[in-house]
């Protein structure tokens, strides 16, 4: 910068900012001393849509009994050497607790659902103008079958569902 601008800079520096009044200093100092009483705005905001926690729970009371019955029928076919079930996905994953199980009827003793992952597909609008959030839920349904002799068969079925949740749009 040339000499003239440097000289101007020096003139500007001679300007002294107006002093802060004592009462203002006291107010600001007091506010700083009470910093813990101020909650930052970002801590006041709670996200509306949080990632669902992985959960396991008793599935029997939540899903249709028909699905369980289909699985049971499929297991009976497999253990009895019968024809493959109409729904091949039912028998897609079968683990046997013991080798050489009998053909005695198995009944469901327990059922569990475990969410493996969720995927937020985004917000879509219904024809009625409602905003809904589309969530893809990947889970594994496990049904435990047991016969009168205490033999157990576990059937696991992966599922993929798409659920729609009301979305709040500002």
């Amino acid at each position: 910068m040339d000499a003239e601008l440097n000289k101007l800079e020096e003139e500007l520096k001679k300007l002294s900012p107006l002093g802060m009044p004592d009462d203002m200093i006291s107010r600001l100092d007091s506010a700083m001393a009470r910093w813990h009483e101020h909650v930052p705005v970002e801590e006041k905001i709670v996200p509306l849509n949080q990632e669902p926690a992985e959960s396991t729970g008793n599935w029997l009371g939540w899903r249709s009994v028909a699905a369980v019955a289909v699985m049971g029928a499929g297991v009976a076919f497999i253990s009895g050497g019968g024809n493959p079930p109409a729904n091949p996905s039912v028998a897609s994953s079968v683990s046997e607790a013991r080798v050489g199980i009998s053909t005695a009827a198995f009944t469901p003793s327990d059922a569990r659902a475990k969410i493996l992952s969720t995927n937020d597909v985004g917000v879509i609008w219904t024809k009625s103008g409602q905003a809904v959030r589309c969530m893809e839920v990947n889970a594994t349904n496990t049904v435990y079958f047991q016969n009168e002799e205490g033999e157990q068969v576990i059937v696991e079925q992966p599922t993929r569902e798409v659920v729609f949740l009301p979305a709040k749009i500002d």
Partner: protein
Amino acid sequence: MNPAPANAPRPSRFRPWLEEHGSKLLLFARQQTRSIADAEDILQNALVKLARKVEEGTFVGDQQAWLAFIYTQIRRESIDLGRKDDRRRKREELVVEDKKTLGSDIDLPHFENSENMDETRRILEGGLKGLPKKFSEVIHMKLWGERTFAEIGEALDISLNTAASRYRYGIEALRKQLATARLNGDL
């Protein structure tokens, strides 16, 4: 000397620092806002954030770095305040008036001894107020905040070169105002 009232709050450890730097911080806050009340609000918000970080032990740097932090926070607070004001005006359908008709204290002096100032300084003060904000804020931070161009760039979210350019352009604009005043016989 009168003793302090029994219920007077004890000064915080920040007070000496506040007494030393408060005026230049207030100057910058006033440059960023439309009134002394708004300036104090955003300055207070920035100071409380500093106090929180220092007391919680999350502030990176020593006391030398407090000033740079506050300048950055003042700028951010003023932007937030501007957005809130814009939203409020839209909601209330208020017309944004010329700031001179708002009846605010925007025209109160920014510098000491304004009445006794020589004409050159008076023109400089007026010129500073009239400069576009993006130039005057760099000048304020450089001359009275004693910030480097790198620190100014960081606070204003611009490059070092842009900060330096805006500073030179602002100073040059003030020089032209002085030259015009001399031509008009005001100086």
